């Protein structure tokens, strides 16, 4: 457990002796990685920071923390809004060797109270929020990856047409490396999906991975920081829309996507979007199942690891069983229906 004095000593060591932690709070839920909001006294003025470290036994998502830090560091000088990255520490004593990254706290919240209220005014507000998110994604997806230095450390597909195959192959390797069960149905689903890989990506973009509701920092209904970059990758921008947790159902999906296309300057292939909606269900299996490994080894024997890494994974396997062999648009419809669960972030207020 991290205590205030140790945290204070840690910040003072990094920032100078005049810095003292006055309070800190662990954010909820933070199961994959632990995130703490930290407030400091710095010679009379208050500082605020976000301290992030791997959970015991490692993160759920099979991606190292320094990758996420490098992504944020690369984005900070661009027009894409992210929190200022301050430092990455590979193995501090404070966390008993778990890596740490520290960012400056951004004034805002990941919650938009009243967003799901009834009435025309709330509906118009939801559409505005969706359009703002679309603009931020367009800015991200239009980045020149060579000029911004991302090609130096982000795995790159050989061509835009290769994006889906590249992501497919990358995740087959991860699946083989991390799975805790043979999952033959998931293997069979991969063969089925391989027959439907899109080849129509408009360009190779830096994609955020999970994005949308619950993932970003908002102020006055605008995104002030795109947060949580652990699943960032180079690929088809349509894939990010498949991961845009609730943003396409927030307003009119066509209006939102057309606005995105106007800002980005390229189009999203709707059939590719269908494919990626199904593909993301498949990808959730290795991503979450990786989190079960420290549970099985005893390094992190906590119930969220069990429920995400086992129960949720088996639920996604059931979902794949419902879809396997069907036309992709039909499978995407099954995913869309499933995502209407009242517990999705976008439906949390219902």
């Amino acid at each position, binding site marked *: 457990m991290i205590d205030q004095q140790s945290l204070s000593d840690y910040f003072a060591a990094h920032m100078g002796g005049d810095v003292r932690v006055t309070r800190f709070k662990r954010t909820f839920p933070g199961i994959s990685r632990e995130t703490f909001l930290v407030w400091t006294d710095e010679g009379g003025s208050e500082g605020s920071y976000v301290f992030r470290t791997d959970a015991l036994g490692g993160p759920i998502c099979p991606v190292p923390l320094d990758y996420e830090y490098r992504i944020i560091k690369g984005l900070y000088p661009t027009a894409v809004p992210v929190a200022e990255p301050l430092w990455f520490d590979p193995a501090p004593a404070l966390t008993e060797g778990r890596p740490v990254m520290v960012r400056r706290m951004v004034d805002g919240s990941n919650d938009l109270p009243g967003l799901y209220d009834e009435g025309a005014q709330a509906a118009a507000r939801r559409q505005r929020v969706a359009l703002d998110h679309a603009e931020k994604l367009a800015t991200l997806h239009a980045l020149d990856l060579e000029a911004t230095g991302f090609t130096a450390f982000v795995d790159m597909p050989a061509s835009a047409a290769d994006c889906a195959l590249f992501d497919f192959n990358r995740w087959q390797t991860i699946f083989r490396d991390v799975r805790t069960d043979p999952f*033959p149905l998931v293997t*069979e689903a991969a063969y089925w999906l391989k027959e439907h890989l899109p080849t129509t990506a408009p360009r190779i973009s830096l994609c955020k991975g999970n994005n949308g509701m619950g993932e970003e920092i908002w102020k006055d209904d605008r995104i002030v920081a795109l947060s949580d970059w652990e699943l960032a990758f180079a690929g088809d921008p349509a894939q990010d829309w498949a991961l845009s947790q609730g943003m396409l159902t927030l307003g009119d999906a066509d209006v939102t996507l057309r606005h995105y296309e106007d800002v980005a300057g390229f189009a999203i292939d709707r059939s590719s979007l269908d494919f990626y909606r199904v593909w993301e269900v498949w990808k959730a299996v290795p991503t979450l199942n990786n989190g079960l490994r420290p549970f099985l080894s005893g390094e992190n024997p906590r*119930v969220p690891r*069990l*429920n*995400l890494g086992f129960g*949720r994974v088996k*639920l996604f396997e059931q979902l794949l069983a419902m879809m396997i062999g069907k036309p992709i648009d039909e499978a995407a419809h099954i995913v869309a229906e499933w995502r209407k669960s009242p*517990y999705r972030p976008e439906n949390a207020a219902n």
Partner: protein
Amino acid sequence: MMPTSQQMLAAVQLALQEHVAPKIDDQWAQSALRSVEVILNHLQARVPVEGAMLHEDSRELVVLLTAARDRLSHDDPALATFLAEAPDLIDGYARVDALQALNHKGREAVDALLHACHARKGEAVADAVHADLRAWLLKHADRESGFFFPTYVGRPV
């Protein structure tokens, strides 16, 4: 008469629902309680039927995998281990954890066979074996369905 595992798990759940949940307003504690509730639901669905399910599932796997091995001349260590161990376990009275371990080996063999069938796609015998494997996969998913669906639908943490 002894209370069943199902009844005992349900009693634990009721105690938490009636006496613990109303007194908790901390986010982490609420989340922990939600997770425990889901696990108790899962166990109530799984514990009474898992042994019989694994027994039936593995018995079918023996038939399926023996036929697949013979038809494809498939030589795989996981398959050989499964077929060597399965008869004794299935014929006698087996513990559930032993059946779980056996079923795991059987599913490993299924996985290897799926790759073999896809590598030989277009060959009539491989396509026929593949169709049988896929039918078993869906049957297996259906057998397990009640353990996970709708138990794990909902807020993940």
